């Protein structure tokens, strides 16, 4: 068993045009920086990206939007990216905006073998259109489907060669669910550590979910809004 790759370029060698990719992160926090940059370099087109946000104009998924590699975005909040807004209002980009909790649960369900679930989020709104509504205990719920994705791009703090992962701070966010949900899950870690050095009690993502792992380089970890006392 070898899950270990040298770099992002080698790890995404079989990503193809028209693939669907989940990308972890909330804003620019916990995004797979190396994998995104490798994808820009590779030039893969017509991608469907599932990610809570769409980055900013010149970082994160914003880099893939700029190079017009994204056909469709599935996100909950995209307010930080003016190029995104421009492409959307001009009809150049397909966008599916869905509630953040539903986005998270559609990832979780996908990884847990649950094809669909009911949620109260969005009842009575335009996102409930054409979806099955069912009453439970007198309250309406919407049927939502698990995602299907070819790849999941994950950023973790530390990981071992087996693929056991831990995340740091709020950089965890969507990464653990997405790690369970990709047909192929590719992980970049800030620090690759020897097998056995991570305490089994504190593993966030068990190795079974991870197909490929490598140690990332040159993390910029850009902050969107530096707020201080």
């Amino acid at each position, binding site marked *: 068993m070898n899950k270990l790759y040298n770099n992002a370029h080698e790890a995404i060698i079989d990503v193809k045009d028209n693939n669907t990719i989940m990308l972890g992160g*909330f*804003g*620019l*926090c*916990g995004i797979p920086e190396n994998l995104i940059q490798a994808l820009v370099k590779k030039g893969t087109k017509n991608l469907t990206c599932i990610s*809570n946000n769409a980055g900013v104009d010149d970082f994160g998924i914003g880099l893939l939007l700029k190079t017009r590699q994204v056909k469709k975005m599935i*996100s*909950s*909040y*995209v*307010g*930080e990216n003016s190029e995104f*807004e421009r492409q*959307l*209002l001009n009809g150049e980009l397909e*966008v599916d*905006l*869905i*509630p*953040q*909790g*539903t*986005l*998270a*649960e559609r*990832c*979780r369900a996908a990884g847990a073998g649950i094809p669909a679930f009911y*949620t*109260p*989020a*969005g*009842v*009575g*709104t*335009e*996102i409930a259109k054409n979806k099955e509504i069912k009453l439970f205990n007198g309250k309406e719920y919407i049927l939502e489907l698990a995602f299907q994705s070819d790849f999941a791009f994950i950023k973790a*703090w530390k990981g071992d060669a087996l693929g056991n992962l831990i995340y*740091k*701070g*709020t*950089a*965890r*966010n*969507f*990464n*653990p*669910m997405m790690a369970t949900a990709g047909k192929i899950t590719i992980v970049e870690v800030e620090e690759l550590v020897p097998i056995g050095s991570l305490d089994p009690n504190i593993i*966030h993502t068990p190795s079974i979910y991870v197909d490929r792992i490598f140690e990332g380089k040159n993390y910029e*970890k*850009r*902050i*969107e*809004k*530096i*707020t*201080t*006392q």
Partner: protein
Amino acid sequence: MGLNKFQIAQRISQELNDGDYVNLGIGIPTLIANYIPNNISVIMQSENGLLGMGPFPKREDVDPDLINAGKETITTLDGSSIFNSSESFAMIRGGRVNLTVLGAMEVSQAGDIANWKIPGKMVKGMGGAMDLVASAKNIIVAMMHTNKKGESKLLKKCSLPITGINCVKKIVTNLAVIDIENNNFILKEYAPGVSVEEIKNATEGDLIIADSISEMCLQ
């Protein structure tokens, strides 16, 4: 006219109870954290995966791996916990968060809220707002009473795409504190220096004056 945004936040802070788990939206709601009464303890939930959100960091303590749902750098506190997004919304949909405060573009007298989209103009997305308003036990809206054109934001029916139905319980604006009951706005408190007549004129929906109406107390 009436309160500024800091005073709106200050008034809403009076609605907090000891032991509450609270989710504060972006904008005016975030300011409420500055006015938590000293004699109570509340725990802030940030839907990107943190319970026990602390104040902004000192410059030297800024950590790119520690942000709130508004993407601002923050800190943890003794007793904080960090979790993934799925778990975060499990506690929200599961009804564990006692109070949600958020901003709005429009609120209807049925308690519908619109705050995520202006067709053809603004496309930002709903973020966690639809999940929050579908499940929170108590939802307070913090907003200005009228929009930039001077039009009422308290309407019979929302004109913008809604975020959730029949969910808002209370609105605190620069002019008034208004409860929503039985498809009516109930005027409970007026801001210092603001007349009931001015509030009526700024409210498009049906407004009932509460018997117990009083002036807002800010302290």
